């Protein structure tokens, strides 16, 4: 059976070129880069090249730091907990932290945990366009007691891109630090740290055709962090643990390729995404969440009235198409998707969201096939559905 992967916001295929640059660091150049001997030092030029690729990819300044870690979840936890620990250790009044209701669990769960330790966390809602409103941020900031703001750059479920430049300006004006979860931005839209003056951003290689289990934490010059993982002196003492050289080097290459493909992403991936979206919105009783021009070029979150999301995925999977849902029927919480609520999408649609996410490997033929499968799925599952007022196609 054909297999079509439209779940690239979950993870991506590793680029063959990335795999190739990683290969020598398993069995030949396997030294520990912190060793003084030649086995260690021979890896250094490759690490430097990878760092150059990463710095160039996000337009970081040479004075800034990019800590290589295990993933974006680690990066997010590091920033959030570091700022909280700092307030505690310095007995500071800055116990307020601000985030949004549409964060990935790697941010929201870290904040939920800090709340248990005494942090005051404000969760900003989204507006009718599905974005975190800069004015709401301005209002929530009390510069005397606020330490950190964490907001998702591009949302993983909807693909909606937040106005991060405005957040950066507001945070600067108020002397508050800004942390952006850039996981779904890197490789999909330009990420330029010269233009967006955030203090911290996080990313994960596997979202842009790099390997899983390696990520980056960008720290703008003038900021410091308290390590999440204490131990050896790796990463300038900011992140202990023997450096994963093949993955480090692979991520550098993946970043270089991602950035050089941004134009392709914006043109070709967007064209195929739009083709798929046009076909989806032609089906009756379907809503796509968020305006196209406000989204990353690869993502569609669509709601098909009368079809529960997991059942939809089941039928797609039976026909070889992989997608995902935000609210699986088995998820423990019944809370409605905050984006749906804010955008005034009926609660009867809360369990009907399906996310399709493309990549530079997605082909036109695959999209044509997926469209057929989606049509058949809608037809079959709506014929089973008890929901009234929905038409098949």
């Amino acid at each position, binding site marked *: 059976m054909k297999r079509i992967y439209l779940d690239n916001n979950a993870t991506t295929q590793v680029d063959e070129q990335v795999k190739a640059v990683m290969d020598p660091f398993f069995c030949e150049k396997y030294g520990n880069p912190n060793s003084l001997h030649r086995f260690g030092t021979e890896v250094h030029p490759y690490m430097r090249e990878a760092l150059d690729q990463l710095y160039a990819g996000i337009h970081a300044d040479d004075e800034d730091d990019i800590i290589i870690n295990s993933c974006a979840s680690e990066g997010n936890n590091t920033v959030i907990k570091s700022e909280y620990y700092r307030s505690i250790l310095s007995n500071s009044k800055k116990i307020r932290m601000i985030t949004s209701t549409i964060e990935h669990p790697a941010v929201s769960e870290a904040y939920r945990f800090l709340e248990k330790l005494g942090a005051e966390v404000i969760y900003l809602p989204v507006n009718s366009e599905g974005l975190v409103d800069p004015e709401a941020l301005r209002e929530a900031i009390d510069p005397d007691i606020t330490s950190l703001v964490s907001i998702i750059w591009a949302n993983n479920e909807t693909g909606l891109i937040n106005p991060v430049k405005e957040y950066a300006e507001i945070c600067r004006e108020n002397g508050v630090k800004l942390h952006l979860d850039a996981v779904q931005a890197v490789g999909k839209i330009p990420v330029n740290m010269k233009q967006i003056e955030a203090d911290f951003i996080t990313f994960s290689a596997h979202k842009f055709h790099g390997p899983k289990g390696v990520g980056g934490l960008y720290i703008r010059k003038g900021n410091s962090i308290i390590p999440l993982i204490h131990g050896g002196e790796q990463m300038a003492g900011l992140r202990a643990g023997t450096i994963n050289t093949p993955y480090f080097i692979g991520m550098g290459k993946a970043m270089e390729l991602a950035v050089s493909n941004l134009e392709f992403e914006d043109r070709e991936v967007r064209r195929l995404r739009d083709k798929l979206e046009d076909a989806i919105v032609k089906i009756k009783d379907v809503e796509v969440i968020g305006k196209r021009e406000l989204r990353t070029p690869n993502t569609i979150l669509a709601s098909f009235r*009368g079809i*529960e999301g997991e*059942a939809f995925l089941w039928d797609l999977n039976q026909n070889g198409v992989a997608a995902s849902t935000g609210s699986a*029927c088995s998820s423990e*919480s019944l809370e409605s998707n905050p984006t749906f609520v804010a955008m005034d999408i009926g609660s*009867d649609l*809360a369990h009907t969201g399906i996310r399709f996410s493309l990549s530079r490997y997605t082909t036109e033929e695959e999209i044509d096939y997926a469209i057929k499968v989606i049509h058949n799925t809608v037809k079959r599952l709506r014929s089973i*559905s*008890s929901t009234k007022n929905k038409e098949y196609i």
Partner: protein
Amino acid sequence: MAKTDLIGGSLWEQYSEKVTERMNHPAFMGELTEEDAAAKGAELVIADYGADSCGDAVRLYWLVDPKTGKILDAKYKSFGCGTAIASSDVMAEMCIGKTVDEAARITNLDVEKALRDSPDQPAVPPQKMHCSVLAYDVIKKAASVYKNVDMSVFEDEEIVCECAQVSLSTIKEVIKLNDLKTVEEITQYTKAGAFCKSCIRPGGHENRKFYLVDILADTRAEMEKERLNTAAAKKSFLELTLIQKHKEVEKVIEQYVRPILNNDGGSVEVMDMKEEGGKTIVYIRYLGACMGCAASTTGTFEVIRNTLKQKVDDSIEVQLV
């Protein structure tokens, strides 16, 4: 389960073949109409349960023979995940040929069992158990529509955990009998809360009328009250007449002491009781195997003495005759 949990994403892998088959080829999906009913001289019953906003909704259609109360045909429509659709399909099939009263006794556990490939391998993973609950709720709804009565008529007991079908009275009983102190213990003893977890505390997958955390707190409070009451009752031991005191002592000996001694083929009897300077002296005599047993003057004696002191009153002293 540990390794499966560590790998994650195994939800669908844990479905039985039957669940997959029913989801892919539901056999009883569809609608029944007044025309269908007229053709069979039957009454059409339509019942809705659940809502799209909760993630699960089902509509059940029955053709009921008015003379026998038998369900001649059943179909359904469902908004839900694969398990919900598969459960509804089996449920509709199970209704056919039963009387309305018989059908109303089908539970979600029956539905889940019918979906198993082998008798001791669950058809769905724990977090999916609640998807079969709707299938049985809708039967009760249909029965109440047919009989024109309230749905609660078909619920003999207050069910706290729908997935495992555990009632309020069962949960209270195990808490009291086993002196349970945590929700985890309740789950270990009864399986309540082991599946979709909605009944553990507010904020889960579904809103419930009762939550285990509240039941535990209330029952523990009740137990504490009972304990204080018995303590209060004990305080007045000294005010009882000698005959009343004798009754209390006999009660405790019968309940706590004799069963132990009987195990070894022995027993004990109270020969006399005396009140002396704020003390109550109980004279006892061993019977059967206890007579002449070495422990009877030491260990066993201590057990009897302590039991009476704790369960009746501290003022009691015991003497062997």
